[in-house]
């Protein structure tokens, strides 16, 4: 019982991570893949922050008289990770806009079909 | 004095949470977009106000109270503007409000009312 109470936060994180992973690989729509990636990233953040928490401690801002603080090191790592995550999401969305302009569709399977068709046409031209 | 303050703040916090809950129930149960937005916007603002007043009574230090008053003013300003933005977006995109239900009820009510008044 103590093991379940002590470890359940990791299990919830793993469930979230797996849902995000499933969204990335099972859906063809590119924006949904990026949202799945976002869910995956946020679950990793939750993992790190929950590792850094110490029971009975306060936020890591120095105050008179308080001895026990939560660990500031995971907070720093995740702060960096959040901002880098939004940067890559923005770039990914910009790429999606250009793909839409070039292909006309956003679904991965349809884009693959159009690429295959273009390659077949190119082979026919060369022969 | 301490007991009275904490009792008052608990009272305000409870009212605030009840308003939030009722707003949620309203969003689920109202039949139309505009009525739902009315439920969300009005109860949201009032619930935030009540919760902030409850928090102010929890910790009567001057700096904290001033910060909370500023947050309260901004919420009172921005939340109705946001609801207005939502409603205007719907109206501009010709989302029809659900008026038929009301008219049917009115007709049946006025018909029965006329009957009772005539007879």
């Amino acid at each position: 019982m103590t093991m379940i109470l002590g470890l359940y936060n990791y299990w919830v994180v793993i469930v979230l991570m797996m849902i995000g992973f499933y969204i990335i690989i099972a859906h063809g729509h590119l924006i949904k893949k990026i949202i799945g990636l976002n869910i995956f990233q946020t679950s990793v953040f939750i993992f790190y922050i929950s590792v850094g928490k110490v029971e009975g401690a306060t936020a890591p801002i120095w105050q008179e008289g308080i001895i026990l603080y939560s660990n500031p090191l995971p907070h720093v790592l995740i702060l960096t990770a959040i901002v880098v995550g939004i940067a890559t999401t923005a770039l990914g969305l910009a790429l999606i806009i250009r793909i839409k302009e070039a292909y006309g569709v956003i679904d991965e399977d349809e884009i693959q079909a159009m690429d295959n068709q273009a390659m077949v046409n190119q082979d026919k031209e060369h022969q | 004095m301490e007991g009275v303050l904490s009792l008052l703040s608990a009272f305000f916090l409870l009212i605030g949470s009840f308003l939030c809950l009722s707003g949620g129930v309203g969003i689920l149960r109202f039949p139309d977009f505009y009525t739902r937005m009315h439920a969300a916007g009005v109860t949201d603002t009032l619930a935030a106000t009540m919760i902030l007043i409850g928090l102010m009574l929890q910790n009567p230090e001057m700096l904290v109270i001033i910060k909370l008053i500023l947050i309260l003013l901004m919420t009172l300003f921005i939340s109705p503007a946001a609801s207005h933005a939502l409603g205007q977006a719907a109206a501009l995109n010709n989302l029809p409000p659900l008026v038929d239900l009301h008219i049917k009820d009115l007709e049946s009510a006025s018909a029965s009312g006329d009957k009772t008044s005539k007879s």
Partner: protein
Amino acid sequence: MVGIALAVNQIKDMFAVVMLAGIYGLVSASFFVAMDAVDVAFTEASVGAGISTLLMLTTVAMTGRTEHEASHKPLLALILVAITGGLLIYGTFDMPYFGSADAAVHNHVAPRYIYDSMKEIGVPNMVTSVLASYRGFDTFGEVTVIFTAGIGVLALLSVAQRPKDDAAIEAINDSMHEKHLILRVAIKTMIPFILLYAFYVQFHGDYGPGGGFQAGVIFAAAIIMYAMLFGLSAARRVITQPFVQLLSALGVLLYGSVGVVSMINGGSFLDYSVLAADPIAGQHLGILIIELGVGLTVASVMIIIFFSFSARREYQQANKGGSL
């Protein structure tokens, strides 16, 4: 949060999915507050629930609202996910329990940061002292990554300005003034307060949650709000494209030059103790300047990204003669 993630998986309407992603970010921000991570909660709320939702909505507006049905059965994906999840859960059995004070992560470097931060750097917010001083080089890399993302979005999405299009678009924006009067007046009065709050968060990051990133995002949010209400061309008259590009490069340059000045003064790269006569004053000065650099770059890159997205949208609408 598991419920929200499952709903994102199932729902086919992209608008609803993007809104759910925003709610997911906000709920995780409140989770971070419950875990005593106030700086992280601040950043996640402003970035994950604000900017990210905005950019995704812009993309959905440009690419269509529904998702097509999947053409193949996702059984293989389910099996793969289940196997990976099972292996990971097996791996957690060795991990320390939640909240225990003697976990390995709390033992080596963290006590030194917590207990010596006040003596060596003199800044109450330990996250800022670690971010800006102890691990300042990582933050430099992060600012460079943001700058690179801005350059990438510019390279992908920038549109040449054409003066005759500008006049037509401005005419449309002015004619809508009556329709949007309430919003324009109400929100225009709030913009100075939001900018003031951004400055407060920037310079108060030493004493409470805050710092360069959050301040930059809040500043950009105020400018983006102005652009959304009054039209992109009106916002471009306030914040011209060359100016904002200069600012983004200036932020990175400021950060790097603090490091170089430290080297010139005899210390190593990004060692702030040699910047002033007293080491603690030097640390304060160094942290102030680099947080300013970070705030500048983040704000200008967010503005660049939003302006590029909406300029592309206007360009698409002008070319196709209607909405997609």
